[in-house]
């Protein structure tokens, strides 16, 4: 298929109707590929004994990139969870930032090597520091959004959690606040059907997380996390609502979990081979790649270019992060309370 036809196709393409340029969707694909590449790199490093622990988001990247796409990278806030690698990359963290955390280096922007890998945070790009207790981030996002509304900064806040996390009382309390004050906050739920080994039917009464939003007087929508453009469409709509002062939206993205919960888990112990296999068909990297290929945007050459760029960036990031210094032992005494610098 020649470039001419490709162009012709894309004008009518779905992404165009959503206001996304070819450039946009190729960049979105790049981020998904980058996050996936980083992911694989981290597991390889862990298996090689160079990292103690990995928790990442294979299968979650599509909806994360799509949901982050409408956000103002510099001005809006993001309150992540441990699977939010792709979202954090789009928001402005670099592969080096991520790997500095994996190696727990002194220059890790998330925590200076103080937290386990996957606990992202970055003041400059307005990503709030992540902790481990599931659910606590939802009220934080609400507080940030309340401040934005009171101070009239126009900031939108997005936060993310998994399906299991929605069982926490904090999530209910946060959504209730956001509904009462019609706050500019997007509640993302990345539903991969499991909380470690606990399946959705033992986690979510009624089976629909999005359905709960109605109980708080704001919209809840479900989108297939493999359908990146659909995820973008609902996220963009939610973002615009927030911007217009019409309050929060709950965005439930159904995604496959393309690996074990973390490097400490073996999903084969509680999931069937068939189920794990079936999930591969829902891989957003594959599905979105197929879409771009189908409309002639992702040519074999472009695919190779992107793959090369991703590999180069990850190699460079790995070297930079490995070379970075460990924190000084005595530095552990610092920052219990405020200190200059």
């Amino acid at each position, binding site marked *: 298929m020649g470039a001419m036809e490709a162009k012709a196709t894309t004008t009518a393409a779905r992404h165009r109707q959503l206001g996304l340029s070819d450039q946009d969707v190729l960049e979105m694909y790049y981020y998904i590929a980058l996050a996936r590449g980083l992911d694989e790199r981290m597991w390889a490093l862990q298996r090689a004994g160079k990292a103690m622990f990995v928790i990442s988001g294979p299968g979650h990247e599509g909806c994360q990139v799509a949901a982050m796409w409408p956000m103002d990278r510099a001005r809006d806030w993001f309150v992540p969870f441990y699977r939010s690698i792709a979202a954090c990359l789009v928001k402005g963290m670099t592969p080096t930032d991520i790997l500095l955390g994996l190696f727990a280096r002194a220059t890790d*922007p998330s925590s200076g090597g103080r937290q386990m890998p996957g*606990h992202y945070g970055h003041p400059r790009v307005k990503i709030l520091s992540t*902790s481990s207790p599931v659910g606590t981030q939802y009220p934080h996002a609400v507080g*940030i959004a*309340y401040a934005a509304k009171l101070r009239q900064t126009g900031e939108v806040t997005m936060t993310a959690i998994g399906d299991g996390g929605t069982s926490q009382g904090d999530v209910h309390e*946060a959504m209730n606040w956001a509904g*009462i004050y019609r706050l500019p906050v997007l509640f993302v739920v990345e539903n991969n059907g499991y909380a470690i080994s606990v399946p959705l039917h033992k986690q979510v009464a009624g089976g629909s997380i999005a359905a709960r939003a109605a109980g708080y007087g704001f919209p809840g929508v479900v989108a297939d996390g493999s359908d990146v453009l659909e995820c973008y469409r609902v996220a963009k709509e939610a973002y615009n609502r927030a911007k217009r002062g019409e309050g929060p939206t709950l965005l439930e993205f159904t995604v496959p979990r393309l690996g074990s919960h973390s490097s400490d888990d073996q999903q084969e112990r509680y999931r069937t081979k068939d189920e794990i296999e079936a999930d591969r068909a829902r891989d957003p990297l594959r599905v979105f790649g197929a879409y771009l290929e189908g409309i002639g945007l992702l040519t074999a050459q472009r695919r190779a270019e992107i793959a090369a760029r991703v590999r180069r960036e990850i190699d460079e990031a790995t070297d930079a992060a490995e070379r970075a210094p460990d924190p000084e032992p005595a530095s552990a005494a610092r920052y219990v309370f*405020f200190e200059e610098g």
Partner: protein
Amino acid sequence: MAELRYIDAINQAHHEEFARDERVVILGEDVGRKGGVFGATAGLLEKYGEGRVIDAPLAESSIAGVAIGMAANGLRPIAEFQFADFIHPAFNQIVSEAARLRYRSNNAFGCPVVFRAPWGGSHGTALYHSQSIEAFYAHVPGLKVVAPSTPADAKGLLKAAVRDPDPVLFLEHKRMYRLVKGEVPDGDHLVPIGPSVVRRPGRDLSLFAYGWMLHEALQAAATVSAEGIDVEVVDVRTLAPLDRETVLRSVAKTNRALIVYEDNRFGGYGAELAALIAEEAFYDLDAPVIRLAGPDVPGIPFAKPLEEWFSIDRTKIAEAIRRLAAL
């Protein structure tokens, strides 16, 4: 200098800080229309409006968690818990989040939130409206805990807490709200978080107390002074971080230590004071370090006879002083 009730000093501190800094907001149950169940926030809603004076939903974990988020985005929130007994649902947000945010982010994010809680035993407040919670929180690094016992300190420490870059748990003893009056310096009166203060100098023994117990202790000290026992009473008004020097200096002077607290004895805050003295002032001691504290039952019972059985008062303190002085 004006004479104020404890509750009025707290109310004044709110009004002054709200006027000084528009980033200051308050969220809590009934803090708006009602002005707080004890009146601590009276008049704020009328002056500063619903945006800054927030009648929060009945959900303490979110009161703490939302405050943390507000602080991350430029506000200076005061989170009021209606009773210290009801701070427990917020334990995770305060201990895992507020106290750890700066440390875990390597100083990238701070958490300038004041957590206010009316605390301690009063008359007829029973198991769930009388709890002493300081031991749980003073043990948490990254969190400051203050417990002023005078109107001047209540005002000065609250204003200092609002301006502190880190989370502060501010404990207001319910018993003092209307009972305790005192001179409060005019103007922008601040009391630094940290220093303890000697309320009554003495030679024979050092008595360490805070909150309402300080007042019972001063009464007891007056009683026994007539008997020739000269008690030094130290007000540990900041529980964490502790002013070790003032504690150790006093023991070095009197060579005897009595620690009084109304919380359950086992593992209470006074245990840390006793442990500190036993390790750092051992060679100064002429007698055992004595603790006088609440019995180890799950709460203060309601019925008067039971409440009196539980409560530490000037009489029980005077007896403990005599016992220690005689050792």
